[in-house]
């Protein structure tokens, strides 16, 4: 008995404790496994384990023709599906030196911005839900349904449309497109004030997000973080400003930059971006020129041998498509530089020293989509 009493008792607080925020978890936004090493409730370090939705899309694309690749890019980052499609279409059009009609560029830019608003609405839903405010889920999805109605009328499906094709669009937009988009913008400008009332000004939300998960500008550049998560740290990285494509050099919009680099700032970036996207759409929606909805393309597209790279700004950050072609109708190697992959790599660095509840808030503010990480 005495031996048991005299055994040295380890101080429980000094031991490290590993927990698994496993692939099935309500707030990891998909199948991401985080092995978190804790001391008490403070995070010491974090190891992400990816690959639970790795489908080998890049290898599959080596056997698909370029119009077929569009369907697979949809499924990578399904919130910015059109923007992903746009990247591959522009790459093929530039390589084959095809001029798309101006009508196509206008419609593509408007739809890209609608997709961005759509993605940020869903981000807002899941951000509120992760912090515990389930009302946000219903409000955001209700408003998102309005955009999905517009998409369904013109393209036929609510999610994963594959509407862009190298050379133009698969079919022309519905005659009601212009009217519906204008009605949506009018509706959403009022509703976004509600979003600020519900969540942005909420004292619990501000206590949980201000000063948490600070990312400095140098770290953002070095870790390759892009998109609103990096702009919150003051890093100007918007591809639409620095390497403009489509009509972005002809419309006026601000690149929203922050200073603090914490979770609250990343949140405010996306709220402001929704407003800027609406401004861009308003400048373009009344001026869509008449014309063809596609350029004349050959039946079989063969890119000349060489290397091509196209950058676009998705709702998450910079997507890059790198194609090595050997002259055939399928690419020799295609690589998607996905924004969520780089955004995830900085998660370990910024969560050191915070609590588990903060980890959830930081993960929600980085806005990664897991199939985009794993491809």
């Amino acid at each position, binding site marked *: 008995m005495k031996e048991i009493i005299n055994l040295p008792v380890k101080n429980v607080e000094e031991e490290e404790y590993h927990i698994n925020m496993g692939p099935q*978890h309500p707030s990891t936004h*998909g199948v991401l496994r985080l092995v978190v090493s804790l001391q008490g409730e403070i995070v010491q370090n974090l190891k992400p384990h990816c690959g639970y939705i*790795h489908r080998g899309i890049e*290898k599959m694309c080596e056997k698909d023709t370029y119009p077929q690749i569009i369907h697979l890019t949809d499924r990578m980052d399904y919130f910015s599906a059109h923007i992903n499609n746009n990247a591959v279409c522009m790459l093929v059009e530039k390589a084959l030196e095809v001029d798309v009609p101006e009508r196509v560029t206008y419609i593509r830019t408007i739809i890209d911005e609608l997709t961005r608003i759509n993605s940020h609405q869903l981000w807002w839903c899941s951000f509120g839900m992760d912090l515990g405010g389930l009302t946000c*889920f219903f409000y955001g999805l209700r408003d998102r349904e309005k955009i999905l109605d517009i998409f369904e009328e013109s393209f036929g499906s*609510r999610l*994963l449309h594959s509407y862009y094709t190298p050379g133009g669009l698969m079919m022309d937009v519905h005659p009601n497109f212009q009217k519906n988009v204008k009605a949506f913008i009018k509706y959403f400008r009022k509703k976004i004030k509600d979003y600020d009332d519900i969540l942005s000004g909420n004292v619990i939300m501000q206590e949980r997000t201000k000063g948490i998960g600070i990312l400095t500008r140098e770290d953002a550049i070095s870790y390759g973080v892009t998109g609103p998560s990096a702009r919150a740290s003051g890093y100007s990285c918007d591809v639409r400003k620095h390497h403009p494509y489509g009509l972005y050099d002809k419309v006026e919009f601000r690149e929203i930059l922050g200073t603090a680099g914490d979770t609250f700032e990343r949140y405010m970036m996306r709220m402001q971006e929704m407003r800027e996207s609406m401004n861009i759409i308003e400048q373009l929606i009344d001026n869509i020129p008449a014309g063809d909805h596609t350029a004349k393309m050959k039946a079989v597209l063969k890119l000349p041998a060489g290397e091509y790279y196209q950058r676009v700004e998705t709702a998450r950050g910079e997507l890059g498509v790198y194609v090595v072609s050997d002259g055939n109708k399928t690419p020799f190697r295609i690589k998607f530089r996905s924004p969520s992959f780089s955004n995830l790599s900085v998660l370990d660095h910024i969560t050191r020293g915070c609590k588990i509840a903060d980890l959830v808030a930081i993960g929600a503010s980085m806005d990664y989509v897991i199939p985009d990480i794993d491809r």
Partner: protein
Amino acid sequence: MGVIKNMKDTDFRDNETLELFKKSGGNILMTTIDAVIDWGRSNSIWPLTFATSCCGIEMMATGAARHDFARFGIEVYRASPRQADVIVVAGTIVNKMAPVLKRLYDQMSDPKYVIAMGACAVSGGPFYYNSYHVVRGVDHVIPVDVYVPGCPPRPEALLYGVMQLQRKIRLESMGQPRQTVELK
């Protein structure tokens, strides 16, 4: 916009097995208790929060305000498999995720049901050819009750799938307990 044909109430309640049972003069007490239990179970199916990829978003949209599936009894999602009744496999299952899915299914307590939502869960979907890491259909891993095709299926299609599951549950009887097939 497309409209899925509504199921008439008479069709919903009509089943050859039920008819046969009634005709062959089954035990009245058992049928009443069965009816009550099955009515209770089918109208209160609580799913597990499980979504791998794009179909998960359509599942969330089905739960949202417009296509509200709380009116079908799916009141809340449960995060823990012990408390969940159904697992709606929404999204692609890959080789690395398959053991995790099997473990989640094993952790669920009886009676448990599986809905395979989306083309990827039904048969591998767009990733059937040329992928080295995708499981071609979730029924290689766990036994499936209802298949809902589509890429992604519309919310109305998922609601129809849930209604089919409700019909299937109403066929159950205490005298013949549900056989869960053990896959090797």
